[in-house]
């Protein structure tokens, strides 16, 4: 019962399964190479993710030595250093809020491209909403007035009405 079907049929010996023929060191080597490739892939993916997080945070910070540019968009040396600091702090496990706080402690709220939603900065957020509501209110009042005035019957002078009727009956243009 130990012989293969091929041996029993024609006596020709079939090649052993591929893995069975490989010596152990080759298998270990292959496993090692595969593991390294997988780990390298994972590391590259992590690096890409880290880089995108760095830029995501940098996009919300104003470049101190530029005009209307974010830290993500600027190629200034200071902006590069700030991106490096963001990366370093992310690697140390700091949260986005902690990183923003690091920069606001040094530059004040000015460093944030989006004004914080507190104190006097709330005016920036609330003013557009208030203006929009006021606008809607004014338009509503005006439309109501126009509709009401359209519903009112038009007063026509009886003499003019008679003249128009007479003209229509006589076929005058």
């Amino acid at each position: 019962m130990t012989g293969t079907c091929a041996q029993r049929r024609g006596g020709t010996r079939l090649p052993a399964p591929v893995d069975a023929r490989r010596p152990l060191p080759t298998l270990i080597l292959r496993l090692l190479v595969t593991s390294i490739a997988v780990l390298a892939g994972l590391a590259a993916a992590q690096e890409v993710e880290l880089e995108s997080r760095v830029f995501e945070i940098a996009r919300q910070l104003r470049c101190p030595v530029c005009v209307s540019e974010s830290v993500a968009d600027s190629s200034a040396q200071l902006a590069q250093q700030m991106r490096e600091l963001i990366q370093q702090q992310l690697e140390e496990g700091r949260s986005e809020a902690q990183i923003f706080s690091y920069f606001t402690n040094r530059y004040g709220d000015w460093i944030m491209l989006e004004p914080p939603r507190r104190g006097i900065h709330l005016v920036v957020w609330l003013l557009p909403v208030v203006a929009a509501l006021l606008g809607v209110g004014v338009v509503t009042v005006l439309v109501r007035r126009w509709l009401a005035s359209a519903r009112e019957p038009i007063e026509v002078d009886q003499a003019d009405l008679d003249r128009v009727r007479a003209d229509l009956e006589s076929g005058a243009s």
Partner: protein
Amino acid sequence: MTRIVLIVVGVALLGGLFAFGLLRGEPNRDIPSAIVGKQAPNFVLPLYERFHPDFGESLELAAQVGRPMVVNFWASWCAPCYEEAPVLQSYWERFQDTDVLFVGIQTQDRQQYDAGRAFMDQFGLSFPNGMDDASAVSVEWGLFGVPETYFINRDGTVEYRLVGPVTAAVLDEQLAAILR
């Protein structure tokens, strides 16, 4: 009639806004510093070789607490820095017998060591100067540009920050304040 007046007022307002946008010039860079009134952030600044005999290879701010300090940030490409350098040097010469310490920090000037040496030679700067090559000190101090000068009192608190070239009048006033 009222409608015409409203249209004229509206057009005048929009025109005024447009003219303001065109004529307002450069945005104001004098943004308040977040570190004024706080403890000056520490740094360890590698100094140029010429300062090694008197001040050592590097200067640590924390080791200077107890001395009033004037910390000036400059760059070799910055025109106003050339304006203020002789003023700083003359005040350093006048005040170096007191315990005040002037420190120059070259920043936003990556690897421009030769340009830095030429700058110091041009004005014969004898107070310690070093290079913040990666701009790390600049970020730590919340720097907006160059030149910027910080006046630090004896307990290490930042008393005043000046954006732009330092003048004799500013130095007179601020040195008197930190030497008190």
